[in-house]
């Protein structure tokens, strides 16, 4: 626990130093994207890692935040309002969809999330007030009131703050009743139920919090990219990106999503910028190869592998139960 807090503190200090010190827009852009995806990965990790219900529709919660932001700004409201509004809608959506589906066994929950995401996507595309397929272009403004900045520094600070909050919440989750219940349910739902753990109730709570985090990331994304449309926020491809980050990094681990986001951003985004101009798609080949390598040899992901190695060296005593990835 102390090490986790120290590591988080170090990241926040270094990140803040980078946000104030760096002028290179490309590096700051990668840094922002890294933090944003780390948050999305952690959000996914709550329901899919700790609770063990693999979601392939997580982008719809991200979309709730992004669309809340777009709607607020285009209707002359403060984008700050979009954070509670988007989070509320996302949490309600999670409760409504989670109630009948979270108790589904095996892959059925995953299939249900894909179906719900497809429904939301189709719904948005038919609604004029949601911009249909055209989406929204947010007008360019500046300042904290408008939650928009000409420089990247404040965006990185905001993303850093969100990341820190989410990591702290996850540290708390790992030591809370909710966290123990979720892992118990994941390990053996029948045994957990037999000692009186209400599966639906606790998983709904986790799902709602998970959706809330993704929505907050969505608001930040919209304010940064200033463009919101279905393919860039709620499409299946985004959901799969989020799930991949969680899997690559190490499912059900505190630092897994951050590690997965690092791999994703450095490879899928950073390498693409360096060599993507050739149009030969090497960057995608490399990213794909890494995913295959991890899937074949290290299904516990990066952090899961590191934790396993540490445990072998020091004996299992120091590592809290549930810190390794199993699903």
């Amino acid at each position, binding site marked *: 626990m102390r090490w986790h807090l120290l590591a988080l503190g170090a990241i926040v200090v270094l990140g803040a130093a980078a946000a104030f010190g760096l002028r290179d827009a490309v590096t700051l*852009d990668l840094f922002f*994207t890294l933090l944003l995806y780390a948050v999305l990965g952690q959000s996914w990790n709550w329901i899919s890692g700790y609770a063990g219900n693999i979601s392939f529709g997580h982008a719809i919660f991200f979309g709730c935040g992004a669309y809340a932001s777009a709607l607020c700004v285009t209707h002359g409201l403060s984008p700050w309002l979009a954070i509670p509004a988007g989070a509320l809608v996302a949490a309600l959506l999670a409760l409504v969809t989670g109630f009948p589906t979270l108790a589904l066994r095996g892959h059925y929950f995953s299939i249900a999330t894909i179906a719900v995401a497809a429904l939301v996507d189709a719904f948005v595309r038919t609604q004029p007030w949601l911009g249909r*397929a055209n989406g929204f272009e947010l007008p360019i403004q500046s300042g904290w009131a408008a939650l928009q900045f000409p420089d990247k520094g404040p965006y990185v600070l905001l993303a850093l703050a969100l990341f820190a909050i989410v990591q702290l919440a996850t540290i708390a989750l790992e030591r809370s009743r909710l966290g123990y219940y979720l892992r118990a349910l994941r390990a053996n739902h029948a045994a957990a139920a037999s000692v009186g753990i209400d599966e639906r109730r606790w998983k709904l709570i986790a799902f709602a919090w998970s959706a809330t985090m993704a929505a907050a990331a969505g608001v930040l994304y919209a304010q940064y990219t200033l463009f919101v449309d279905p393919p860039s926020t709620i499409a299946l491809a985004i959901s799969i990106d989020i799930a991949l980050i969680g899997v690559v990094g190490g499912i059900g681990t505190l630092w897994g999503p951050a590690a997965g986001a690092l791999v994703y951003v450095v490879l899928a985004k950073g390498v693409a*910028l360096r060599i993507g101009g050739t149009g030969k798609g090497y960057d995608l080949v*490399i990213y794909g190869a890494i995913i295959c390598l991890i899937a074949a*040899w290290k299904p516990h992901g990066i952090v899961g592998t590191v934790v396993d190695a540490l445990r072998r060296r020091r004996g299992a005593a120091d590592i809290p139960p549930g810190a390794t990835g199993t699903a």
Partner: protein
Amino acid sequence: MHVRRLGALIVTALVAAAVSGPAATRAADAPEIVIGSVLPLTGALAQTGAGLRTAQQLAADLVNGHVSYPLPMVGKTGLPHLGHARIRLVFADSQGKPDQARAAAEQLITQEHAVALIGTYASSTTATASQVAERAGIPFLNPDSSAPGLTARGLKWFFRTTPHDGTFAENFYQFLGDLKKSKNIAVKRVAVVGEDGLFGTGAGDAEEAGAKKYGYDVATRVSYPATTTEVNAEVQRVKTSSPDVIFQASYVPDALLFMRGYKQQGVNVKAIFAQDAGFVDPNFLKAIGADAEGVFTREVFSMDIKYRNQAVPLIDQLFRQRSDGAKPLDGNTARDFMGVLVLADAIDRAGSTKPDAIRDALMKTNIPGKLTLMPWSRIHFDATGQNDGGAGIIEQLQDGKYETVWPFDVAVRPVVWPMPAWKH
């Protein structure tokens, strides 16, 4: 050998191959002016992106070369007012995604020090890449995105040469107006049919707005997912609304479904106006045969423009030599080719690589239509940065081939009106 070691080796080789790729293209001696180009080079739009890249590079090479064509800035061995400096295009991949387009634009401006940006084909990626240019104060030339909203954002550094969906829709109504005068036709009710993606929605919105402006009634608006496998209900809705003409934005499979549906249910209208795409695809024409005879489509480009500018077939030939599979010049590639020339012209007139000077020069751009590959009257930007000389052309499928029928001054065939009724 261990499997693990082999895997590591493969990854190392891939990284090495990837990193060593683009270094060879750098020219050494002449001073260079860097123009950054954001295009969808991978992902679903990669094929289109590859063609656009070829077209832009061809234009840059012709600007840097010494062979003259009736086109602006071509054959002057670089930019004369800048000591014959050569222009160099640096490409960055948008992957067709708004956030990646944004990052690519950022990279071209801050790391490649591009003096201007061009791109990006998809309207959603143009929206984000142009915002980066706006923040940085770098001119952005968009030759190929058709969402009307892009020039309604009040951006100072954004210039668009292509006409947008609104113009294309207005062209249909202008065409109907011209036909009313010359042939005394009667059209009152229009049905607007389109897939529910960005393409169909944008076209449909513009057609509805045009109907209001030009005094037509919208009989019905039908939108459907492009991946649909049957459209009986949609066709029925069109039929019961009894339109005079149908405006249709579809890809190949759905265009085929609708045409078969119209025939089966006997939907007889005076004309079907298509938004190119599926309706001009060779696979559509092969599958549908004579049943599509008389369909109109809007186009941004046609080889028939050679009657106005003899450079058209010559550029087409050069383009075919460079493109994979010897593809002919088309509306997208011709527009991107012209985009590079418009930027080169502005930078040369600016006589400077300062962004302000280039922007001022862009605002004074005035290239006559006959010096372009396009059916436009001129290239000249209005206060929003939109080219006010842009126009589309309208073609009609006659004897199995799309022939230009409007505007009348570039038409090669007379209009057949109305479309033949279905024969059962």
